[in-house]
């Protein structure tokens, strides 16, 4: 559904994205994971034609991004990281404007607006100016807006940044439901548990490069499914094991407090880069 070949972007000497190659399949929820500044947003901006790549090409739903602008625009929905709703308009008018910009016939537009307002649970507030909405409501409305024209591919750039834990879980449900309805989803996040909970496959980016690719399970398998963290007089210890038995055996040999837990994508990231996400 999305094919990226050698996509590259630099800002001065900084390689924001270098030689990115990636295939995202139809009806997949794919997560680009990495710390701030890893190149995730730049990648999304290049795929949505808001930033011009220095080199490489990308195809969305079979259309080349740089050439077949109109077709690509109809095929994609974009939810950016920052709030970019029209605050001078009501929730309903924001959706209505989007439908008109995408040339939806009036009758279908009206139906779709109401359907989506219900979908993101904003029906009762539809006539209010968006400026008065909370962060979570704005984010939900942005998702509804991106879905208006029934895009086949949806880009969600840090969809839950700045949201409280409860709203975040609601957002995850929303993403899963959109995916069930047939949308291919590319999301970026620097929240490990988000990628873990939502994505069928994850690409880990660091300093503009894709350093790992696979399902969360595969990636964890690669570094070892279990982690033993120990605390003794000399400080913290940290070890990874392929099986529970090995982990338990190792824990039995150590003195001091130990914790055995399952590997997270954070552990994968640390193993690959020697740093934590966000460091």
């Amino acid at each position: 559904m999305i094919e990226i070949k050698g996509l590259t972007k630099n800002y001065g000497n900084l390689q924001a994205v270098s030689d990115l190659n990636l295939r995202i399949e139809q009806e997949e929820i794919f997560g680009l994971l990495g710390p701030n500044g890893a190149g995730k947003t730049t990648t999304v901006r290049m795929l949505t034609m808001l930033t011009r790549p220095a080199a490489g090409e990308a195809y969305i739903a079979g259309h080349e991004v740089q050439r077949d602008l109109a077709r690509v625009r109809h095929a994609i929905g974009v939810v950016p990281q920052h709030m970019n709703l029209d605050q001078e308009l009501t929730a309903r008018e924001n959706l209505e404007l989007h439908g008109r910009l995408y040339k939806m016939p009036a009758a279908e537009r009206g139906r779709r607006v109401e359907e989506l307002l219900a979908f993101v649970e904003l029906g009762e507030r539809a006539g209010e100016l968006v400026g008065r909405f909370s962060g979570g409501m704005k984010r939900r409305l942005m998702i509804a807006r991106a879905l208006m024209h029934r895009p086949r591919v949806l880009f969600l750039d840090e969809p839950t940044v700045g949201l409280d834990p409860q709203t975040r879980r609601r957002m995850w449900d929303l993403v899963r439901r959109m995916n069930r309805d047939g949308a291919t989803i590319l999301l970026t996040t620097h929240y490990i548990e988000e990628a873990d909970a939502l994505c069928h496959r994850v690409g880990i980016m660091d300093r503009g490069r894709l350093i790992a690719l696979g399902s969360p399970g595969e990636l964890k398998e690669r570094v070892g499914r279990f982690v033993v963290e120990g605390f003794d007089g000399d400080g913290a210890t940290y070890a990874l094991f392929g099986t529970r038995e090995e982990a338990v055996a190792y824990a039995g040999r150590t003195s001091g407090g130990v914790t055995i837990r399952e590997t997270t994508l954070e552990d994968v990231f640390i193993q690959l880069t020697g740093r934590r996400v966000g460091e």
Partner: protein
Amino acid sequence: MDCYTVFWREMLSFKRVFWKFIASRLVGPVLYLVAFGWGLGRSITTNGGSYLDFVVPGIIALSAMTVSFNAVGISLNMSRLYHKTLEEYLLAPISSLSFVLGKVLAGTVRGLVGALIILALGFLFGARPAAGSGFFAVILLTCLLFAALGVVAAMTAPSHEDMANFSTFVILPMAFLCGTFFRAENLPGVVADIVYALPLTHTSYALRALAAGKGLPLVSLAVLTGYAAACLTAAVWTVRRLR
């Protein structure tokens, strides 16, 4: 039709602020009319009519320029740099020309409303300009021109401050020099030539001639049309560059 969508959105928000807009548009012109019409104007005689009759077309020209420039320029610059709402249009399957036309037409509507307010106020103060269809056509063309210039400034200014600077260095001097309050021909040689090359001078000339019941000066019409075409082209180019 896409340009109508852009225009439709602008009219939605214009309807919401309509009375506020009217009220804020009244302040400046009332001050001008009091200061230049009643205050200063009493002691000035122009060849023929009163200074009030002389100055009203000038104030209309000035106001058509500032209202349409600011209506498009400030909001579009905010939308590009601060609210980021411009992205919605950049992503949408509409042409850059449609976007520019929609914005420019909306700015023109505001500029026209602003001009009508001054015409009405001037009437209350005792000015009786002959405002026929040619008169309104010149106002319309001026609004188009400066709304398009507003797009160019908004799309190129790297910050809000630069946008304000553009107003100060380009719009403000024109407001005072381009035959709005006095005859630009009376300026010293080179200055008069420079001022003659500026678009607003021709709006003032044309409006004043038409208000006095004379014909439309064709040179002025040609200059305004030329500027308007150039600004529109530049506006479309500045939007296309971002996509």
